[in-house]
């Protein structure tokens, strides 16, 4: 059952993640909650401890040796992340934030509050994460702009015909999730960028579920903005990224004021620092940024194309195995065309009960609305269970998931 043409040397990779060896009541952990957060490999943990053990210092302002070392590493981390997503502008197009959510809010406040007004429209999709949905919804309320939502088809894909009708000359921003964290749908973001640009609108791509597990090239997509989180891609928590096209970041006003983000301050006025520091007020996420660059190295060493294939294989396998029973509903597109996650429901068993029962077998999944409440309304359910995969997962672990679902089925029969 669990045979697989291994695209990755998973056994070798697992050695980098000691947390996966944890046992609960003698049963080894099966961690399938990677869309929420991924584990951190030894080289990244070492980067963090090395930073604090040997060159911890505040950046930019210091002349002393430690500060110079920290500054260079921190600045170069921006270049490394730029390279990772194909941003040829380098560090000037990469702003370090706290997470995807903050990256969204940065643009919503710095650009949206200033530029949007009555008559303007922000086009989102029904499968947006609350990170973008709530943010644009609230900015729209404050500015008098209007949010429109591209509907999904029965298969859980974007209705592109509707998208073409919804995106008009009134559209100022199209904000779209690249890979849906609930449906697993891989959205045609570059096609949407083309449509948006035909109407002089910007496109903001939520890359939280795509940058970690497939090659993403911002210039091939022609995204104006892209956001993602370090903790979902083998990096630490507390670091997110905002990519923005250089000319747009230059034109935008800052979002947070304070130290680090200024060049010259008088009692009367201030001049902003250059990119990207203009958007990084206060002491930035130094260690986390450096560790994120190490995570990029780690993932590139494995190979983003191979990670993509590995995840697709696991998702397809899980999709097919879960659907062996008619009482399981899996949401989103078919097995051969989805990102590395499956959200599902077992008939007659609430997702939270299912997750509790799976936990008894040391299988960690997520249950709830996955920060997509309006999408769950469209799906007609309050909650779903979600298994999501990463570089260290195996088909044998999917089998453990399916067995635990069988247990739940029997318990509730």
């Amino acid at each position, binding site marked *: 059952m669990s045979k697989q043409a291994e695209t990755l040397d998973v056994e070798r990779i697992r050695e980098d993640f000691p947390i996966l060896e944890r046992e609960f009541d003698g049963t080894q952990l099966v961690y399938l909650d990677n869309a929420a957060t991924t584990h951190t490999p030894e080289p990244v943990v070492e980067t963090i401890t090395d930073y604090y053990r040997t060159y911890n210092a505040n950046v930019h302002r210091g002349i002393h040796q430690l500060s110079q070392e920290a500054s260079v590493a921190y600045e170069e981390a921006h270049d490394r992340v730029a390279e990772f997503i194909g941003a040829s502008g380098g560090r000037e197009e990469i702003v370090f934030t706290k997470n995807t959510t903050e990256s969204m809010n940065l643009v919503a406040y710095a650009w949206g509050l200033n530029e949007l007004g009555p008559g303007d429209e922000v086009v989102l999709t029904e499968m947006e994460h609350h990170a973008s949905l709530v943010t644009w919804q609230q900015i729209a309320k404050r500015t008098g702009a209007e949010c429109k939502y591209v509907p999904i088809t029965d298969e859980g894909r974007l209705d592109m015909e509707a998208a073409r009708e919804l995106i008009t000359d009134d559209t100022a921003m199209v904000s779209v999730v690249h890979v849906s964290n609930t449906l697993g749908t891989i959205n045609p973001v570059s096609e949407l960028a083309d449509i948006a640009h035909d109407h002089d609108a910007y496109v903001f791509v939520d890359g939280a579920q795509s940058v970690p597990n497939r090659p993403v090239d911002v210039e091939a997509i022609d995204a104006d903005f892209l956001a993602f989180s370090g903790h979902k891609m083998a990096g630490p928590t507390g670091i997110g990224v905002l990519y923005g096209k250089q000319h747009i970041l230059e034109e935008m006003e800052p979002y947070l004021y304070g130290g680090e983000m200024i060049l010259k301050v008088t009692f009367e006025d201030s001049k902003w620092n250059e990119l990207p520091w203009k958007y990084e007020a206060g002491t930035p996420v130094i260690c986390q940024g450096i560790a994120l660059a190490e995570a990029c190295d780690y993932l590139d060493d494995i190979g983003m194309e191979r990670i993509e294939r590995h995840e697709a294989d696991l998702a397809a396998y899980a999709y097919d195995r879960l659907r062996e029973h008619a009482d399981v509903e899996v949401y989103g597109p078919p097995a051969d065309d989805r990102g590395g996650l499956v959200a599902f429901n077992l008939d007659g068993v609430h997702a939270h009960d299912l997750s509790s029962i799976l936990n008894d077998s040391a299988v960690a999944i997520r249950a709830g609305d996955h920060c997509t409440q309006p999408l769950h309304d469209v799906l007609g*359910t309050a909650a779903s269970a979600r298994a999501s995969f990463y570089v260290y997962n195996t088909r044998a672990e999917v089998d453990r998931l399916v067995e635990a679902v069988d247990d739940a089925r029997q318990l509730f029969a």
Partner: protein
Amino acid sequence: MYRQQILDHYKNPRNYGELEDPDIEHVGENPMCGDTIKMFVELADDGDTIERVRFVGDGCAISQASASMLSGELHGKSLETVEAMDRDDVADMLGVELSPMRIKCAVLAEKVAQDAIAIHKGEADPVETTTE
């Protein structure tokens, strides 16, 4: 966590249904899970003793079994006694240890009952829905 008694109450909820003309009626929900419970209470002539309880609801086994068990427990109790109940009483009633994440599901029914009573007595402002 899913001992037989809980599963039984979930599959065959006691006192399930609505009351035509209840003295007290209140609804609560746990928006994160989508658990909902609506409770109906009829009081004895003394205006203080619970004579009949019915509930309807939807959600996870823990929330619904807890409502079913509580509906039995409330019978014959005074409003004050119900108001004095706490989380431990619910845990005792369910007879299982609940993880911090699931306690909300378990106490929803109790909270609905207590809010309903507080509103009935005028001790709390009427709210349409109790949220846990």
